[in-house]
């Protein structure tokens, strides 16, 4: 019996994977900076459009988070308003009441729609911590 010394290698799309902690009922935001190879200079995202979506497996609901682009800084700021996060989980007995999936998708606009490129740079989870104080 012979066996190959070549195991499968994994290539291709490999978005970064982050875990974002959010307190239920709080306004939560993160800033994503797209940088050139020197990890300092902003990358040109002037022709890029972004969509950020969260999925709650308990309620089976999809929430679209707001994303605001800053072209000169090469950043987007993603925000989940308090009016949205207050519905992310129920109860008070557990510290962690829910875990949502989310991703950030970029549309790199080409000269025509057919030349647009879709790229998902970020996937991850939103860990929701229970709150006690109520507005």
């Amino acid at each position: 019996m012979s066996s190959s010394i070549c195991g499968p290698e994994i290539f291709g799309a490999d978005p970064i994977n982050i875990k974002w902690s959010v307190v239920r009922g709080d306004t939560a935001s993160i800033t994503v900076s797209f940088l050139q190879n020197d990890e300092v200079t902003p990358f040109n995202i002037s022709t890029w459009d972004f969509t950020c979506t969260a999925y709650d497996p308990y309620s089976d609901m999809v929430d679209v988070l707001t994303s605001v682009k800053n072209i000169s800084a090469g950043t987007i700021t993603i925000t989940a308003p308090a009016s949205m996060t207050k519905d992310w989980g129920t109860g008070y007995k557990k510290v962690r009441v829910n875990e949502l999936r989310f991703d950030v998708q970029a549309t790199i606009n080409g000269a025509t729609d057919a030349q647009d490129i879709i790229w998902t740079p970020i996937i991850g989870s939103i860990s929701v911590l229970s709150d006690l104080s109520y507005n």
Partner: protein
Amino acid sequence: MIIKVSENKPNLPGAIKITYSSGQVQVFKIKK
């Protein structure tokens, strides 16, 4: 025999930095 496999990718950034509202920062290099 050499087999070369390459993936077509657009011009992508070299890194992504995440800044949380707490001030925590994470930097990830993009595989190209």
